[in-house]
């Protein structure tokens, strides 16, 4: 899986609700996006640096305090653009696929 692409799904997960890293990982795995956990932390810190996400510390009963990530207004904008370009790309690819199918 190309890591440069991972920002998109991670932003989608965080936009849905505030989550922390292990939950993000679980959801990615559920969506069949196989990731090594190690790649997630630098990615999150990068998103935070670009101010697309922010986090709040949350106490945990069982372990160390957790960083709950949530999306920022800037992050929402980027996400909207990403979705838009994804859909355009998706339609173009689908048309191409259908074309080749009809040709065959």
């Amino acid at each position, binding site marked *: *899986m*190309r*890591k*440069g692409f991972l920002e998109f799904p991670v932003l989608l997960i965080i936009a849905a609700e505030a989550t922390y*890293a*292990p939950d993000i990982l679980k959801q990615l795995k559920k969506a069949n996006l196989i990731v*090594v*956990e*190690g*790649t997630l*932390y*630098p990615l*999150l*810190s*990068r998103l*935070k*640096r670009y101010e697309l996400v922010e986090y709040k510390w949350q106490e945990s009963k*069982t*372990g*160390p*305090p*957790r*960083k709950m990530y949530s999306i920022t207004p800037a992050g929402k904008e980027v996400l909207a653009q990403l979705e838009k370009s994804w859909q355009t790309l998706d339609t173009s690819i689908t048309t191409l696929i259908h074309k080749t199918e009809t040709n065959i």
Partner: protein
Amino acid sequence: MKKVININIGSVVFVIEQEAYDILVAYLESIKQSISDNDDASEIVGDIESAIAEKFLVRKRSEKFAVTSDDVSEVITELGSPADFGEGADEIHSEPTEPNSEIKKRLYRDAEDAVIGGVASGLARYFDIDPVFVRILFAVSIFFNGIGVVAYLLLWLIVPAAETTAQKYAMRGEKVTVIQITERVKKKIDEVDTDTLKKSARNTWGGLRPVFVKLFAVLGILARALLSIFRYALGFGLLFGSALSLAGLISMYSIILLSDKTFIPADAQTALDIMLSNSLGIVAISSSFVMMLIPLLALMLVGRSFVAKRNLFTVSKSITVAVVWIVAAVLAGTTSILQVEKVIRVIDPEVYESGQYQLHINIDNGHGIEIDAELTPPIEEEIMSSPSTDEVLDLPTN
């Protein structure tokens, strides 16, 4: 039986087996290395540590649970290899990059393969040769004034022993990877058996050695502390000394050149006026300034190098500066010789004349004939053309 350690990771305290601890430390260390160019490195490491803590908690089987090396290996496989953390891993399946390919080999004493203090084996590791050769060299050197013995003792004092896993790798010049660490830690268990065998083989020395090892450990700490104190003292001494002289030099030149010079003797004033009134004199003044400036700057850099504990001189810069200095020195030398002649003639014709007089004596005595004889004729010519010719010419006859 296994030794356990208490650690605090992600603000949770765990009991962990020594072996597992070594692996974990090496793993975190290599992650730090692979993300060292990331600005958020410390934050990411913090995130990873709390992730590790959570994973340990999940595995916590009972209150008196100690983290084993199996637990650590599992956690590491879940988290991924150190290379996955680096920014360079963003490209899929790119060539297996080596994020820290420049591993600096460092000189350590190898305490695990030591006959006396591990100096020979440490040197052998550094130069990638068999320790036997180094030991033979040291043994042979005993017959040559025992110089090797002194060198050995000094090295034992100054060179630190490789103690942590990372140091042991630096000694061998190998890269720290998780697999290697795990292998090493496992190998250690085998080494213990051979170690005990080795010890029983050298019975008497085996009894004495620990005493010496302890003694030298203490002496070594003292020697290294003294060395670093000396280094700082020397470094700061050089820095302050050269900075002060630099300030002195600059203020001296600026006072001489910029003030009205009334406070210096009249002779010196005329001398300066003469030098400043012709281009050669100005060259002499400025080149002598550069000539004195460069060594002071070099001394400052030496001082800084001592304090910073690394060599701040680069070859290309040193050569450039040296060339500039030589040019300045030659310029200053030649031009000021010419100036001195001129100045003396104006300020004190008698001295100038007596100088010439002595030149004649020198010729009579047969000392330094060649150089003096060459100097004499042009001086005479100049005197003839100068306004005070009569006076000057009269003097030697007196």
